[in-house]
């Protein structure tokens, strides 16, 4: 990677603030610390597996999504940015600065959890990525879409947090519905699922995530929406 790309990344990092990626990391690292402490204090295998799954499929995606959506509307001089560059590229690059470190650390969490034998039941090597990456893509993409669509990180974090908690509270109702089951981000956490159900769920989460990214990109094709007002 040449020097100008590093300079650009440093510049964008200064715009979003170092607190943004650190906040995303705080969620995944905090969860990992909890699992390690539980392991060190002799927690039961059932509780350990549940906690590891909850951190990977729940906490890490949530922290990353809330933080990624917070970068929307950070440009006091948005009109200057949108007239000199492609705003879609700028915003996606900034989101990448939040998501990429969080994804790498979550992958590291998964490796550590497996080494500690704190691992969701029935997950093989593919679980290193599949346990957390599809829920993270799904939640981050939806959060970005809401934040960009409403020009409101506050709305995005509130709705995404509520959606996350609703999935936890209404597990039974969601799992009884074929369509909602495919969008259930805690699939396999604390319960065994069939290979078919797992595959459908992972593909469906990823597909909706990709569609949400595309929709967000289309909305960013009209960057003038971000000029001239406080967030909604």
């Amino acid at each position, binding site marked *: 990677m040449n020097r100008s790309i590093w300079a650009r990344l440093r510049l964008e990092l200064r715009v979003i603030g170092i607190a943004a990626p650190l906040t995303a990391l705080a969620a995944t690292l905090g969860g990992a610390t909890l699992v390690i402490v539980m392991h060190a204090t002799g927690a039961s295998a059932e509780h350990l597996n549940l906690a590891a799954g909850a951190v990977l499929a729940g906490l890490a995606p949530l922290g990353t999504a809330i933080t990624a959506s917070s970068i929307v509307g950070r440009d006091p001089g948005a009109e200057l940015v949108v007239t000199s560059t492609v705003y879609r590229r700028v915003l996606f690059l900034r989101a990448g600065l939040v998501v990429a470190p969080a994804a790498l650390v979550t992958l590291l969490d998964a490796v550590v959890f497996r080494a500690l034998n704190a691992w969701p039941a029935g997950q093989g090597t593919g679980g290193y990525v599949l346990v957390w990456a599809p829920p993270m893509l799904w939640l981050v993409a939806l959060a970005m879409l809401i934040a960009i669509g409403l020009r409101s990180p506050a709305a995005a974090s*509130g709705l995404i947090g509520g959606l996350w*908690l609703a999935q936890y509270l209404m597990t039974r109702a969601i799992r009884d519905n074929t369509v909602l089951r495919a969008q259930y981000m805690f699939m396999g956490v604390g319960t065994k699922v069939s290979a078919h159900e797992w595959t459908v769920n992972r593909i469906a989460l990823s597909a909706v995530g990709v569609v949400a990214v595309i929709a967000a990109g289309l909305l960013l094709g009209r960057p003038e929406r971000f000029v001239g007002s406080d967030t909604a």
Partner: protein
Amino acid sequence: MTTVLQRTAPPTAARTWWAKTVAAARYEYLMQVRRPAVWLVVIGLIALRCASLFPPGFTSTTDHDTLVADWANNFIQLCPIGVGAVLADRARREARLGLDDLLTSTPTGIGPRLWGKAIGAGAATITPVAVAWVGLLGYLTAQRGAGVIPVGLAAFAAIILPGLVFISACSVTIPYLTGPVLYRLGVFGYWIWGNMVGPRFGIPTPAGTPFEAIGEYPAGAWFHGFLSDARERGITPTGGEAVLSIAFLLLMALAALVTTQLVLTKRSPS
């Protein structure tokens, strides 16, 4: 915006602390209640929870107390997260817009501005909850008769309101320290840990004790509402414990505001 400014009388040094606070609260209320995000998030989260009501079948009960208590339980499960999220950016708004110096030069002072923000923005964010609750009471009145109304109003005041006041006070004070993003993550974590992670998970938590914010104690003691974490602890709440639960939340809200006022006053250059 112009209309709001014209309607709000400018506070002056001659006016009392309370008059300045009311003026600030009025402005903050009007500013917050007009944000589409406030209505969308709060109503959206209430609707999301009510799409799958809990406990199953409670709507067929003939006891008005239990009916409204369980509805209140459904209202308060998700919406505090939304209330916290949309209030979190109020704390540093003036600094973000570069208005701190200008506001410091006015005779209003830090106290009235902070309390005005807490009362006004907090009330505005709770307004969609109140509107949704009134709509529900209208529906229940059509079904069950006017006897639901007084019970419903009491349930709103005892079960829903204290938790929302507590979250509102935290949401206009703690982000001064943490910033809005970390606070939103924190309030989410608190709401799950402090109100939904029961003793069965083996993690120390206030859930199921009078120190939770989800209104389980008033609901159980006064309205025969559904008990979850308290029952898991083997507790059937009494009237005294319900009073303790509400008093704890209101005192914590008060403590958050007083502490923040002291810190901001100490930091202020004037």
